[in-house]
């Protein structure tokens, strides 16, 4: 039954550009990108039990890497994605051990600091063009030899491709022995140590993987927007990603994407109608979700059983 639903959804996603207008398609593209960022947060927070407000840092590193690569090396998308994943992964490898010195709230605080520091760095460094933002990004080339993508619908397909690839890999990860170890870390870290796991090492490993995923999301963002600014990696981005995960239900990957959709749409449409009240609305959304959806959408009693 779930298989059928999944296939149906895939077909819908593939047919989408023929069904809705270019503005709507670019919104869906953004939802996919933020969804990927939310998935990276979910891997840490929902699956491994490490709450984070710092994934925006690696998202930003990926975005700026994509920008720099596109203007200096190559406009080929997959190359940008790969280098973005690498840069973000390395940054995560450097910062991960610091964060893994702590757990719970302290861990959250450290990730917040990391995100904030990355944001300040983006504003101050020359290589990111500071507060002006990084412009002049050429349209992405999906594969070497193919023409650059200029239509919103085609960019959507490129992003969808990247999204599905990462989503698939994450699903494999979750069903693997490593995935089970992550859930063990979440449930009872000291017991995990007592059955022979070097828990901090596993923590750093998933931290790097999540960082790399955020980096890929970042490069996809750059390809969509063709512009990167420090605000794209600020604190509110991290907070929104976390909100998306909580809305969707901790541990549920499809929930995170749905949550991302809700967050993006809220910001865009409703925030547009109630201009200037974006922050207020988001705050209200946070409060409502915490009180009304203790286990997110995935935790709601639905006809079929849902799991990560």
């Amino acid at each position, binding site marked *: 039954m779930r298989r059928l639903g999944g296939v149906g959804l895939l077909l819908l996603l593939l047919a989408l550009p023929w069904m809705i207008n270019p503005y709507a398609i670019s919104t869906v593209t953004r939802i996919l990108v933020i969804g990927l960022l939310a998935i990276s947060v979910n891997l840490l*927070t929902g699956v491994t039990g490490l*709450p984070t*407000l710092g994934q925006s840092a690696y998202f930003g590193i990926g975005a700026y890497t994509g920008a720099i690569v596109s203007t200096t090396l190559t406009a080929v998308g997959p190359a940008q994605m790969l280098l973005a994943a690498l840069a973000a992964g390395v940054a995560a490898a450097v*910062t991960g051990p*610091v964060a893994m*010195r*702590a*757990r*719970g*709230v*302290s861990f*959250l*605080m*450290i990730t*917040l*600091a*990391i995100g*904030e*520091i*990355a944001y*300040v*760095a983006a504003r*101050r460094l020359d290589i990111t063009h500071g507060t002006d933002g990084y412009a002049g990004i050429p349209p992405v080339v999906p594969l070497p030899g193919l023409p650059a993508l200029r239509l919103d619908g085609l960019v959507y397909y490129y992003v969808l491709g990247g999204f599905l690839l990462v989503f698939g890999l994450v699903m494999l990860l979750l069903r693997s022995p490593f995935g089970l170890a992550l859930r063990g870390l979440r449930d009872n*870290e*000291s017991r995990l140590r007592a059955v022979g796991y070097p828990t901090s090492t596993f923590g750093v490993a998933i931290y790097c993987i999540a960082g790399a995923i955020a980096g890929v999301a970042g490069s996809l963002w750059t390809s969509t927007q063709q512009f990167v600014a420090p605000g794209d990696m600020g*604190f509110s981005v991290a*907070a929104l990603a*976390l*909100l998306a995960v*909580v809305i969707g239900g*901790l541990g549920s990957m499809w929930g995170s994407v749905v949550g991302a959709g809700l967050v993006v749409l809220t910001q865009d449409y409703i925030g547009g109608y109630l201009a200037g*009240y*974006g*922050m*207020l609305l*988001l*705050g*209200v*959304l*946070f*409060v409502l*979700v*915490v*009180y009304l959806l*203790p286990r997110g959408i995935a935790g709601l009693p639905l006809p079929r059983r849902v799991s990560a």
Partner: protein
Amino acid sequence: MLDWFDANLVTMVDGVAYGLLLFTLAVGLSLIFGMMDVLNLAHGTLYLIGAYAAYALSDGSWTGLLIALLVGVLAGVAGGGVLAALTQPLAQRGHLDQALLTLGIAFIASDIFSKIFGSEVLPISVPSQVAGSITVFGQVYPVYRLLFIAIAGGLAVMVYLLFERSSLGALVRATVADRDMVRASGVDTRIVMFGVFAFGAALAALGGVLGAPILAPGPSVDETVLVLSLVVVVVGGLGSVTGALLGALLIGQVQTLGVALMPVYAPFLIFGAMLLVLAWRPQGLMSLVARA
């Protein structure tokens, strides 16, 4: 050596001022978490309450400043009460939910503040007697900063004595270390916890009123204050007043002296400082609570 000190003295004193400001903000956060296990991400909002009160009421006279202090602190306590009440139902639900809730409240408050006060960083008027600069040991220095150091320093000493040397402080420390044991000995720990929450909020708001001339109110200032407070708390260790003081002074110096000496690396200095401290002592400079 002496020349270097001479050249950088003003900055270092600036660092002490900044550090003491961070202390008034961070100590509340540290105690609130250490005590109630509540992660309060609306802490920066409490600072803004005080800072905006200073903007609105401090008109350059001493009376104005005092009124601002009174109103600011009371508003801060009220804000703290609201936060405590709203997080109470989530007591069993874990830190993530509290984080999101208080974050949501911070967003709402931030929006409201912008509507009322606009989105510019606002200048604060201080009483004319302390508005200028004086020359101390050959260096020109703003009088208000020195006054602030004196007041905040006195506050720090008072908080330290209250916390470490009084029986009330002993009760608070015991509750942080082992809440169940204290409850078992007949003390209503909820009163203690609410009291600490109110105290922490009052201090943050107080820091806002007094510190506004140094760190003026505006949008995203609450975010800055929150992050710096969190770094101080992580570096100092949760639930410890001495730790908060040491951490605050360290971060204060990093933020001022570090930035003055190595402006290119400015954003990374705090991270580096945090990293070094954690590498040396994972529980923070002075950890009272032995949490995993």
